[in-house]
């Protein structure tokens, strides 16, 4: 088999089953690709070829013995550095955790290991997942494979870029306000934020616990579904984990059909503030769905105008609490001030040295929002907005099966362009944040290139809580319709990365 890196995870599974290739061969091909292009892309923070190849060898042995663990046994994947792993460092993109080795695996990591998947490495991210560009990583930014001078989105820019650059067929990500979906939008890939509680967060380094969710990142809707089926389900280690029996997401893709599907277009996310090329591709995609039997109606979510503000109170408040654990005592960095000091002075010196500017900004904001006297006005009010956003969604989903919007207002911007204006970057999260506030699932998938800059555009679908399968149905259907129309995949149009550059 040639050009192994160009195949989807589903295709690799078929090739492994037929004996056309081996896990060692597939894993080595991806490691070679990482060695060739990651100097330019910088999607990975850590790669350990020996560990990956040992896992691949074990998979090949299982297959030879006839006892594979899962249909995807032997297929490699990348893991966002927010997820803790026992055989690779886990830093969450922060200096304060540089080199830190977890004594246990995140539940989703355990699940992919138990399915026989082969971890390729840990992917880059904004520090503690705070950011929309990966520029806030303490280890330097990731570059968008479509244009290396542009952002790959964030916080999960590493996982999205790895998949877009054919360094991994799929990857694990985390989404607190769009960190899976917005990188998918700007890199021409697929990303899914499952229903809150649908996938275990045990071992995911916490950012904002009432918003965080783990999910799949891939080049095709089917691959995300296959990974979702592996990582989903109840986990007794996570008390927010739902006990639902979930239908197969992969089956939803394979049986995708939009005939009679009611799609609500969110009027607040269609027009002003959105790039013309983003809107053009979005409306073409809707027309295609309509031509194939879907019914498209307009819906309004009036509370959306307060969603970004509420999010940027709730997230910093919860983050300031979650990040209190980096205290220089039990794990992570310790910086001793000159001349020594009390444990509190050591703690303050460590946190000054170990946290980046965006993390400090949000911790200070969160500490302010939770302060006595301000708590009700800020955190309390933001939690009320959350109720209003949920009510808006309830009303909307009484009349439609899924909601649709562009995933983000613009295509990928230039690295550095918004770095000095944190609020500008935050406003770009307007379309993705509401799903996290309400706990509902969302998906982004590519719908073409914006005419003004030739960069990828994503459509976002949202479904009611626990109806993740609807996303895979509509996403799977749209993907086939678009590829049939184009005669190719979107990523096949990406510029060829110069191997060995930088």
């Amino acid at each position, binding site marked *: 088999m040639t050009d192994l890196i160009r195949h989807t995870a589903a295709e690799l599974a078929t090739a492994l089953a037929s004996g056309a290739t081996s896990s060692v061969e597939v894993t080595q091909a991806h490691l070679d690709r990482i060695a060739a292009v990651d100097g330019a892309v910088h999607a990975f923070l850590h790669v350990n070829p020996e560990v990956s190849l040992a896992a691949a060898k074990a998979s090949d042995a299982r297959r030879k013995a006839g006892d594979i663990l899962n249909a995807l046994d032997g297929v490699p994947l990348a893991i966002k550095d927010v997820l803790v792993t026992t055989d690779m460092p886990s830093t969450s993109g922060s200096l304060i955790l540089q080199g830190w*080795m977890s*004594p*246990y695996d995140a539940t989703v990591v355990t699940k992919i290991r138990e399915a026989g998947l082969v971890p390729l490495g840990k992917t880059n991210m904004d520090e503690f997942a705070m950011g929309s560009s990966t520029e806030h990583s303490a280890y330097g930014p990731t570059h968008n494979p479509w244009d290396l001078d542009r952002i790959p989105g964030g916080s999960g820019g590493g996982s999205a870029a790895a998949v877009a650059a054919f360094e991994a067929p799929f990857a694990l990500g985390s989404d607190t306000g769009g960190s899976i979906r917005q990188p998918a939008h700007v890199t021409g890939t697929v990303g899914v934020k499952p*229903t*809150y*509680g649908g996938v275990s967060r045990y071992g995911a380094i916490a950012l904002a616990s009432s*918003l965080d969710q783990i999910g799949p990142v891939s080049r095709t809707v089917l691959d995300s579904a296959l990974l979702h089926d592996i990582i989903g389900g109840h986990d007794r280690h996570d*008390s*927010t984990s*739902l006990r639902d029996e979930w239908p197969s997401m992969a089956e939803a893709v394979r049986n995708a059909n939009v005939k009679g599907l009611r799609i609500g277009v969110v009027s607040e996310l269609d027009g002003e503030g959105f790039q013309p090329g983003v809107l053009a591709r979005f409306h073409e995609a809707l027309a295609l769905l309509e031509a194939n039997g879907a019914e498209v109606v307009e819906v309004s979510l009036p509370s959306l105008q*307060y969603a970004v*503000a*509420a999010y940027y*109170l709730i997230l910093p*408040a919860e983050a300031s*609490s*979650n990040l*209190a654990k980096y205290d*220089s*005592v*039990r794990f*992570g*960095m310790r910086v*001793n*001030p000159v001349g*020594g*000091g*009390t*444990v*509190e002075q050591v703690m303050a*010196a460590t*946190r*000054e040295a170990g*946290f980046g*500017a965006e993390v*400090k*900004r949000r911790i*200070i*904001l*969160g*500490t*302010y929002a*939770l*302060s006595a*006297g301000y*708590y*009700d*006005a*800020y955190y*309390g*009010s*933001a*939690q*009320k907005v*959350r*109720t*209003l956003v*949920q009510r808006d969604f309830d009303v909307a989903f009484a009349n439609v099966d899924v909601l649709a919007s562009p995933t983000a207002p613009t295509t990928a911007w230039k690295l550095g362009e918004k770095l000095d204006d*944190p609020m500008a970057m935050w406003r770009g999260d307007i379309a993705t944040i509401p799903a996290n506030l309400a*706990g509902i699932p969302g998906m982004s998938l590519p719908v073409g290139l914006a005419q003004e800059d030739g960069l990828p555009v994503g459509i976002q679908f949202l479904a009611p809580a626990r109806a993740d399968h609807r996303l895979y149905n509509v996403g799977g259907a749209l993907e086939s319709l678009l590829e049939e129309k184009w005669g190719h995949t979107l990523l096949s149009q990406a510029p060829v990365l110069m191997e060995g550059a930088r």
Partner: protein
Amino acid sequence: MIATSHPLRTPGEPTNPHRDKLEIMSDITAEQVRHLAGLARIDLSEAEIASLTLELGQIVEAVASVSSVATADVPITSHPIPLVNVYREDVVADVLDTAQVLTQAPEHDGSRFKVSAILGEEQ
């Protein structure tokens, strides 16, 4: 009992003289930022305090809109999909031993974390 994690309210200063009215004041001062940094245990430099004072003022103004719709009749949502009474079997399971816990400690004596003085001079 609701088995979900709620962020802790930070006790102490600063206090808002308009607290009963839920008004949002965006008069952030350098002194306030210095105080918040102390509460958050981050040794900010003077340059960081200056830039954060400016940014925090702008941010607080931008997020103030939440209080305009957060009327008394709207209940709060602390958790998107609330679960009540999440119990597990009362058996010991999945415990890390002391050696595992200490492997990543900055300093330890084999059975305990080691830190510098806990009490400052003023205590």
